[in-house]
């Protein structure tokens, strides 16, 4: 069914198109994986300019309803988006409570090749060298948090040469490369750590840890993957979110 746009209202054309396209997705007329008509076809169908069509589709791509695949077309990705409340936060490399006095120690800073699924997470080839950093955060000299950080070598080669003891890695990368972090994807899980993690965090054999997987993106590209292991102690992980002023 083709809904029509009207030029009699004050509502912008692209917003009308956005509403029409979104409804098609939500109603299932455009199902998941369906390739939507090309911009040219949509211009013709709705008698609208390419700019308006592009803006409407762009908004749906941004919201995650549609996915553009260069050379192939635009496809329906999701039927509905659970938007939640839009809030902002400062992304911090370490989420320990604000007033805690902690120290960090770089246990490992070396290069490795992608193993297990690292190449998939970072969207790199299996022959891409990675910088691997293992950092231990202690509070009152007691280990509390361990981080394993994987960064493709090409993202920031200088990282290997620097003494990172007094640097936050993220800060260093942003200052010393063209990389600007634009998105963070975070997953939290309970984990049974490996013997080497147990040793670093001084855990007993049965203790589990909180494992935070973080993928940081610069534009569409994942550039840093980290695994943060937090042991159960008297210190909390903490982060603050604020509602975005609309």
């Amino acid at each position, binding site marked *: 069914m083709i809904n029509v746009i009207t030029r009699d209202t004050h509502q912008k054309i692209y917003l009308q198109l956005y509403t029409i396209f979104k409804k098609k997705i939500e109603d299932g007329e455009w199902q998941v994986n369906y390739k939507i008509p090309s911009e040219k076809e949509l211009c013709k169908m709705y008698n609208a300019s390419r700019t308006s069509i592009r803006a409407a589709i762009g908004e749906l791509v941004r919201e995650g309803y549609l996915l553009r695949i260069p050379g192939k077309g635009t496809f329906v990705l999701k039927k509905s988006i659970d938007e939640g409340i839009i809030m902002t936060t400062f992304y911090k490399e370490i989420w320990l409570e604000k007033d805690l006095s902690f120290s960090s120690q770089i246990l490992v800073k070396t290069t490795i090749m992608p193993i297990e699924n690292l190449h998939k997470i970072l969207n790199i080839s*299996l022959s891409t*060298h990675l910088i691997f950093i293992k950092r231990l955060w202690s509070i009152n000299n007691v280990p509390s948090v361990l981080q394993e950080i994987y960064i493709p070598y090409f993202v920031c080669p200088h990282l290997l040469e620097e003494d990172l003891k007094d640097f936050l890695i993220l800060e260093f990368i942003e200052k010393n490369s063209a990389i600007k972090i634009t998105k963070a994807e975070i997953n939290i899980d309970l984990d049974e750590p490996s013997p080497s993690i147990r040793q670093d965090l001084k855990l007993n054999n049965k203790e589990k840890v909180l494992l935070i997987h973080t993928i940081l993106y610069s534009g569409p590209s994942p550039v840093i993957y980290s695994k943060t292991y937090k042991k159960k102690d008297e210190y909390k992980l903490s982060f603050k979110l604020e509602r975005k002023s609309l």
Partner: protein
Amino acid sequence: MPAKRKVKEIMIDIFEYPHVPYWFTLDQVIKILKVFITQKESPIPFIVLIFDEQYNLKGLVGLEEIFRGLEMGLVENLEKLDEETVNILFTEKIKDLANKQVHEIMIPVKEFISTEDTISKAAYLIIHHKLQVLPVLENKKLVGIIRLKEIFNIIADQLVKD
């Protein structure tokens, strides 16, 4: 005079080769090396560079060391190895044999050369210590590698010139 040329003029980038830390297993190293070997322009010799926690080069493994490392799991004394025992390498049992850490089988790197050293010094070290590769340091930092191939090319160029 070619012999007086500096090592830095002919060394190759260390990132031509795969890097792993010493605690990686043989299983992981074999999978990594397979990726490099199947590449169109994979550098010869087929080796993996082994580093420690602070990115210091500790050793290397090539195909021969990998085979030796696997075989060491089959018999106590490699001299007792026979064709039948080697057959095991071509079965599922190889997964158990590839469990050991790579530092157990690597060739430790003992000889280094500086970027400012001469090619003749590099040639001497490679030939007389029977090295597959010679690591090149600059301010104590690993910056490159010299292989027999680089030395051979210079010698061959002399012949071509004549």
